[in-house]
C-alpha cells in the first residue's frame, strides 16, 4: 500500500511569489490534514478535510493560505504571496480512524 506522498520535496522561492504544495493521501482515507513545522518548534496544525469539505481550518495563519481538496482525493495548499515567515516544513497526513499517517513533507524556503 502506497503511503502519503507530497510534492515537491523542496521549494525555494522569493518573497512575494506563489507556491503550491500537493498532497496525495493514502487511498480510501477520508481525513486529510495539513501541518507545518517552523525550524525548532512544534509541528502545528493548519487544517483538516473530511473528503472534500473543510472540517477545521482554525490553524490557517492568514488569508494568504488557501487549501483545496478536489473530489475528496488529493489536496493542494497554495501560499500567495509568500512571506519570509512562511518558511518551514509542511506535512500532510491522512487517516481513516485514529492513526494519522504522515507524508515526508515539503521544505519551503522563502528568501
Amino acid at each position: 500500500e502506497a503511503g502519503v506522498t507530497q510534492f515537491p520535496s523542496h521549494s525555494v522561492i522569493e518573497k512575494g511569489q506563489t507556491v503550491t504544495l500537493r498532497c496525495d493521501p493514502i487511498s480510501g482515507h477520508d481525513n486529510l490534514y495539513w501541518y507545518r513545522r517552523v525550524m525548532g518548534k512544534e509541528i502545528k496544525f493548519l487544517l483538516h478535510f473530511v473528503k472534500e469539505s473543510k472540517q477545521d481550518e482554525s490553524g490557517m495563519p492568514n488569508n494568504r493560505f488557501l487549501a483545496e481538496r478536489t473530489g475528496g482525493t488529493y489536496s493542494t495548499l497554495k501560499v500567495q504571496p509568500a512571506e519570509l515567515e512562511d518558511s518551514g516544513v509542511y506535512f500532510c497526513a491522512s487517516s481513516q480512524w485514529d492513526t494519522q499517517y504522515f507524508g515526508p513533507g515539503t521544505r519551503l524556503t522563502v528568501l
Partner: protein
Amino acid sequence: QQQVKQSPQSLIVQKGGISIINCAYENTAFDYFPWYQQFPGKGPALLIAIRPDVSEKKEGRFTISFNKSAKQFSLHIMDSQPGDSATYFCAARKNYGGATNKLIFGTGTLLAVQP
C-alpha cells in the same frame, strides 16, 4: 501558548541504555496521546499511543507511562540502539466528539544513541 510541553530538547544515550522523554499537558479534554518517531528526510511515523484510562503501555522496547493526575506522560526506550537515533514527538488530541482529530504536538526531542 504551548499546550504540550516536551523535554529534553536533545538527548544523548549510550547503546544499551534507557532513553526517557517527558511531556506535560494542561487540557484535561485530551483523550489520546501518541508518540511519533521521525528520521531525517522522512515524515513522522506513529510509534506507540495511549489513552488516559491506562497508566502504561508497552510495545517491544518502547513504553509509555501515563500519569493522569499530574497530566504528564513519558516515553521510555529500553536497550537503546543506534538505529533509534531520531527525533521523537509527543502529541495529544482533544475529544471534539468526532468533529476533528487534529493533533497538538510537543517541540520534539532529538535522540542520539552512541555505539
